[in-house]
C-alpha cells in the first residue's frame, strides 16, 4: 500500500534542509513559498531518502483570494505519495516557477493550468494555450469567468 506522507512530515523534512521554504502544513499537504518551489522540487526529486521520481499530477485551484498550485508527488522506489502546494496571491498575474526542468511530465499539465486558470509558469519551454485556442480571452476555470454575451465571435474561433 502506498504510504501517504502527510504534509506535516513533509514540512519537517523540508524545514531541516531548506529553511523558510515551508509556510504552512496540515495533514494533507505542505505549502511552500513560490520562490523556494524549484529548490524544494529538485531536493524532493534528487534526494535519495525522498526520491519522488514521478510527478503524478499538477493542478491548480482558484480560491478567489489566491490560487493553490497542487503537486501530487509519488516515489516509485519507496511507494510513497505526498502533496505539495504553492499559494499564489493576486488575480492579475499569478506566477510560479515551472518544474519541467525537474519532471518533464509537468509540461502539458502546466500548459493546461496556464490555459484554463491563467497561472504563468516561468521557465516553461512552450507555454501556450492548449485546450482553448490562441486568441481566447480569459481563463475559463477561474471562478469569476463569465462567458461573453451572445452573439460573439472570437479571433480564430467561433
Amino acid at each position, binding site marked *: *500500500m*502506498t504510504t501517504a506522507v502527510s504534509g506535516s512530515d513533509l514540512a519537517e523534512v523540508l524545514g531541516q534542509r531548506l529553511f523558510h521554504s515551508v509556510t504552512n502544513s496540515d495533514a*494533507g499537504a505542505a505549502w511552500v513559498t513560490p520562490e523556494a518551489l524549484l529548490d524544494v522540487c529538485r531536493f524532493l526529486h534528487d534526494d535519495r531518502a525522498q526520491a519522488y*521520481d*514521478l*510527478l*503524478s*499530477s499538477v*493542478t491548480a*485551484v*482558484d480560491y478567489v483570494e489566491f490560487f493553490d498550485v*497542487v503537486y*501530487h508527488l*509519488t516515489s*516509485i522506489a519507496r*511507494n510513497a*505519495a505526498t*502533496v505539495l502546494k504553492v499559494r499564489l496571491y493576486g488575480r492579475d498575474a499569478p506566477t510560479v516557477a515551472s518544474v519541467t526542468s525537474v*519532471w*518533464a*511530465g*509537468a*509540461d*502539458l*499539465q502546466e500548459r*493546461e493550468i496556464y490555459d*484554463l486558470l491563467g497561472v504563468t509558469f516561468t521557465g516553461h519551454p512552450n507555454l501556450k*494555450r*492548449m*485546450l*482553448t*485556442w490562441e486568441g481566447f480571452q480569459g481563463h*475559463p*476555470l477561474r471562478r469569476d469567468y463569465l462567458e461573453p454575451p451572445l452573439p460573439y465571435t472570437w479571433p480564430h474561433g467561433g
Partner: protein
Amino acid sequence: MHTQPVIVNIGPHHPSTHGVFRMRLTMDGENILDVEPVIGYLHRGSEKLAEERHYTQVITLTDRMDYVASMTNNQAYVLSCEQLTGITPPDRGMYLRVIAAELQRVVSHLVATGFFLQDLGAFATPLMYAMRERERVLDLFEMLCGARITVSYMRIGGVFQDAPGEFWPALRRILDEFPAFIDELEDLISDNEIVLSRTQGVSVITGADAVNASITGPVLRASGVSWDLRKAAPYDVYDRVSFDVPLGEHGDNYDRYIIRIREIRESLKIVEQCVAQIEPGPVRATTAMLFRPPVGESYVPIEAPKGELGFYLVSDGSIAPYRMHARAPSLINLTLLKQMLVGWKLSDAIVSFGSIDVNMGEVDR
C-alpha cells in the same frame, strides 16, 4: 541534393489520429524532423461543468472522458468521492466494481490493439476480431446497467444495482472462451514478420525517461518499470486477488503491444477470482442523494487501462465539488511524443502514436 523541410498536418481529420488529434509534422521527405501535438478539438470543459453539478451527477461526465473505458473513469471518481466523505461500500459492490473495471480494461486493450494494428496497415482484420469480442463484453455492461458505452454504473458507496441473474452465465461463457480468442489474435499478430520488423526497436522510451515524464500504465510498464497502482495502492478488492504485472524490456512499440495482450489475460484471471469470491449482500451503501461532504480534498489514483487516472476533488462543504480535476493519463502520456517520433518515418509516427493508446475524449476533456 537540396531538400526543403515540409510541414504536414496529420489531423485533426485523419483516419488514424484516434479522434481529433493533430500532429504538426516537419518532415524531410519521409523523415520526421519535428513534432508539435495540437489538441483541444474535443474540449468540452468537463471540469467546469462539474463545478455546477452535484456529486452524483458528475459520474455521467466522467463517462464521457475516456469513452472506451467508462467503467474505470466511474471507479476513479467514486473512489475519490468516497475518500472525501468517508463512505465504505459493501463488499459485493466492490467486487462488482472490480469485475466491471477489469472487463473494461479488457475492452480498452482490445480496442487499443485493434487500432494499433490498423495503424500498422492491417486491413481491419485484427480490428474486426477485437471489435467482435468487444461487443460481447459490452453486452455484459448492458446487462449490468442498461448502457454499453456511457455506463454510469458506479455510485458513491457501491454500484447502481446488483447484477441480474443472466449476467453470471454470460460472464462465465466469456471467461471460458476469451483465452482461446486471445490465442487466435496472437497467432495472427505476435509472430508476424512484418509486425516484428515494423515495431521492434521503434520509438524506444527508457524507463527513466518514462518516469520523469509522468508516463504511467502499460506504456510505463513496457519500458520495464514495475508500477501498477493495483499492486502499489490496492483499491476496492485488488488486495484480495492475485495477479501478475507483465513488464517489457525494451520499451518499444512491440513491447507496448504485447504488454496489453498479457494484461488482458491477467484481467481475466482477476475477474475469475472475483467471481469465485463474491458473496450475496447489498451492493450499495445508503447515501443521501444531495450529500454534503466535509470541507477538504481528495485524490485517489487508480490504474485505468491507459495509466494512472485520478480525480482531484476539492469540497467546500456544498453539494457540488468546488473544483474537480481529472489527472488524464492519455494527455500526460503524450508528453514524450516528440522524443518518440523524431528521427523515425511517417509510418512509424502513426504506429507509435497508436501504441501510446490515447483517447481524445480524455486528452481534451
